[in-house]
């Protein structure tokens, strides 16, 4: 929106200061992330910009930390753990969360509010409390220190995201479509997969991506519930910071930032697609 010709001095001042304030907020949010990207190409083993880097001398830059990440077993093991755990946890969150959201959107379900509150509590309760609780509970039943334990714990953290996004999609879902489907002869399972699922899919996928990122970035719960065998990437980064301040962490961080950007772009594209489908839908 450009400034109208009749704007008063006050409006002009506000018009420009508003843009400055927005710029400052973006800078505050993004600067720490932007800084680590050049630092990850540091030729030295330091967390600071060397004089060569500031001179933009190619000598000051190298890919050695990336090389380290992709070759060092200290990093490769956690990478594979993360790659194994996050998709499994996501799959579980998506299936259970979607079913829960559909169930909770039915009008005849009693105690909806209470059930919803319990299901999304992992998002609200401080992580350390959930983690401690899971630790004691999982130790009792022999899940502590197992892949299954970590996957279940991460699924519990991811379910709230799925429930919230799918519930939001279901609000706009026209119930007469499922009736129409039944009337046309489709049994409830066919109706779910052919009619309901395709229409709520954008919500399911964005919930799934949030669940995936949650699991992929999570460090507190895995420290409690996992053992050395289930060491994930964030865990290794945490140890790395504490014990051997290596710029490899910066390389990993850069890779994770890029993955997150890709995932969020996917979410946005899906959201636009669903808006297009729905914006023009009848009724």
């Amino acid at each position: 929106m450009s400034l109208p010709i009749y704007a008063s001095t006050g409006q002009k001042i506000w018009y420009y200061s508003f843009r400055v304030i927005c710029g400052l907020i973006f800078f505050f949010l993004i600067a720490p992330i932007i800084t680590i990207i050049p630092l990850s190409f540091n030729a030295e083993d330091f967390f600071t910009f060397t004089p060569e880097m500031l001179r933009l001398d190619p000598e000051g830059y190298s890919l050695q930390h990336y090389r380290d990440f992709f070759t060092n077993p200290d990093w490769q093991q956690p990478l594979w753990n993360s790659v194994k755990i996050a998709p499994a946890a996501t799959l579980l969150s998506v299936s259970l969360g979607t079913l829960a959201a559909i169930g909770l959107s039915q009008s005849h379900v009693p105690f909806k509010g209470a059930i919803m509150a319990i299901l999304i509590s992992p998002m609200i309760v401080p992580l350390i409390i959930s983690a401690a609780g899971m630790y004691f509970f999982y130790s009792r039943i022999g899940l502590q220190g197992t892949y299954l334990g970590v996957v279940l714990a991460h699924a519990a953290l991811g379910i709230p995201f799925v429930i919230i996004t799918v519930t939001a999609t279901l609000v706009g879902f026209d119930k007469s479509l499922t009736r129409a489907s039944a009337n046309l002869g489709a049994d409830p399972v066919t109706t779910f997969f052919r009619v309901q699922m395709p229409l709520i899919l954008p919500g399911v996928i964005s919930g799934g991506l949030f669940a995936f990122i949650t699991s992929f970035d999570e460090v507190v719960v895995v420290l409690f519930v996992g053992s050395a065998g289930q060491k994930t990437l964030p865990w290794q980064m945490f140890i790395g910071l504490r014990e051997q301040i290596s710029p490899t962490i910066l390389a990993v961080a850069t890779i994770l930032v890029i993955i997150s950007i890709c995932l969020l772009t996917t979410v946005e594209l899906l959201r636009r697609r669903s808006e297009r489908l729905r914006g023009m839908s009848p009724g």
Partner: protein
Amino acid sequence: MNASSDADHFVVFDRVQKSYDGENLVVKDLNLAIGKGEFLTMLGPSGSGKTTCLMMLAGFETATHGEILLDGQPINNIPPHKRGIGMVFQNYALFPHMTIAENLSFPLEVRKIGKSDREQKVQRALDMVEMGSFGGRRPAQLSGGQQQRVALARALVFEPELVLMDEPLGALDKQLREKMQFEITNLAHNLGITTVYVTHDQTEALTMSDRVAVFDDGRIQQLAAPDTLYESPENSFVAQFIGENNTLMGTVESIENDLAVVKLDDGELIDTLPVNVTKVGDRTLVSIRPERVEYDPSRLQPGAHTVKAEVLEFIYMGDIYRTRLRVAGNDDFFIKTRNAPDQRRLQPGEQIEIGWRAKDCRALDA
């Protein structure tokens, strides 16, 4: 039109009751038999139970009491997807993520009909509603009237013997609605399917149906062919709900065979047909259609009672004149006269005498 003979009762509601909360009955003791090939309309104000009846027939609601029979078989325990009844929904309920052809193909796919057969049937159904070239579009790319046609084609494509329609024309403009009314009735009669049509639009009900069931307060108030319904309403609800109607309150003064003389509250006497008054002294609501009122003394039977009236307003409506009168203290007494060359225009303030044939003036329950 005689599809309702006792021989073939295709759909039967037998003492059906429905309550959502276990206390209030939305449908009270419904008995209704629909003949094969009949076009029956359920007409009534909102909340009268007509849509609930349709939903029970489709299987989306269960009857609290009583039985619904389809072709002689009780269907209370059959889930909606096994009933094989076509339905056109109020908002069309086309699947937005499928093309028109996929929408129509859906009921055939779930019935495991082969691909070439399917394509043929889909095309035939689309051609039937003159939408043959729209198969590749999505519902959102069609206008309301086109979506309506597609919804109709989808309800017919799997060749059901019974089709339900829930106010399907409600969202269309007047011209399109009239065109579709005509097309739907034609299609239904040509295909020989039984149709149950729900609407709150009385014109729609009168023009489309073989029989109309007028619903109010969870009961059928009258079940009759459109002309009977309009000309011989059985109670004051039907008289007032169907068409325009003048009402006067009075007391039965004398009653014999087909003539009841009613004394209006201002003391004037009128001739009426006793419908549901039985004895002298009954309070009654007298109903007369605006087009059956005469003010030309030469057109009245000799000896008929007439009533004094004052002309309050003359409204020119093109094909007809509408005149508002004050009759027996009622300021909203309308008469309709055809705009004929020899027709006299009444002037406001004029005092006239009005009358009618006794059989056009029905003495109903008060």
